[in-house]
């Protein structure tokens, strides 16, 4: 998937986030520990996340719609450690659940919508940091 396509979708997701939602800011503890004072490293990691994550969210949504749980779980599995890296911790319980047992989630569509919203809000905060 091209960067332009990913960014275009990223923008549309971000634009869909309501202004009045209360959302915890990304927790940078882990990334700061990893960076050991290297600000460029932090920016680089955030940049990679902002560039790649929208594609993962689109893929999750598509695989859920297709009922392809194997691929859905794979994408969620890959996303999990990245969320810890950039401190979007509030999305982790849902993504973990999808990664482990997406086929058993009754409200999968709602769960994925919640994940997308939470991550998009986190990405909005991350964009301010770079």
């Amino acid at each position: 998937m091209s960067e332009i396509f990913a960014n275009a979708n990223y923008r549309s997701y971000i634009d869909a986030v309501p202004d009045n939602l209360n959302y915890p800011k990304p927790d940078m503890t882990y990334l700061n520990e990893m960076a050991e004072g290297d600000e460029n490293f932090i920016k680089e990691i955030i940049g990679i996340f902002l560039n790649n994550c929208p594609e993962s969210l689109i893929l999750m949504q598509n695989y859920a719609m297709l009922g392809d749980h194997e691929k859905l779980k794979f994408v969620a599995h890959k996303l999990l450690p990245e969320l810890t890296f950039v401190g979007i911790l509030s999305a982790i319980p849902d993504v973990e659940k999808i990664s482990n047992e997406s086929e058993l989630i009754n409200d999968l569509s709602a769960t994925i919508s919640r994940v997308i919203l939470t991550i998009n809000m986190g990405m909005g905060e991350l964009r301010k940091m770079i």
Partner: protein
Amino acid sequence: MKILVCEDDFMMIKAIEHKLKSEGYEVEVAVDGNQAVDKINQSNYDLIMTDLLMPFVGGLEIINKIRNEMHLKVPIIVLSALGNEDTIIEAFKLGADDYITKPFSPNELSIRVKRLLIRR
């Protein structure tokens, strides 16, 4: 000391490289299983770190090739988000020397690498 990192996630690659290079190691990266096998065939490494879920050839198959086809004794650390017991046991049975779950603690990664390299 030269370390091969077999990993398809760019964020993870950056993080591992950052930590290992800051400790003075030379780091090479393979972004899929085929590239990993090629690099191991062509070069000598002091340690190999591998993810499990990778394109073309998975981490468990890479460990199997290293131990049972290439007959190499190079230390292998598995670095995976898969933390279930069956997978961990399978990795050790095939010949992995250590298993770290993602997201990893940078200091833990460092000490585990050092421990295996000292043993060599």
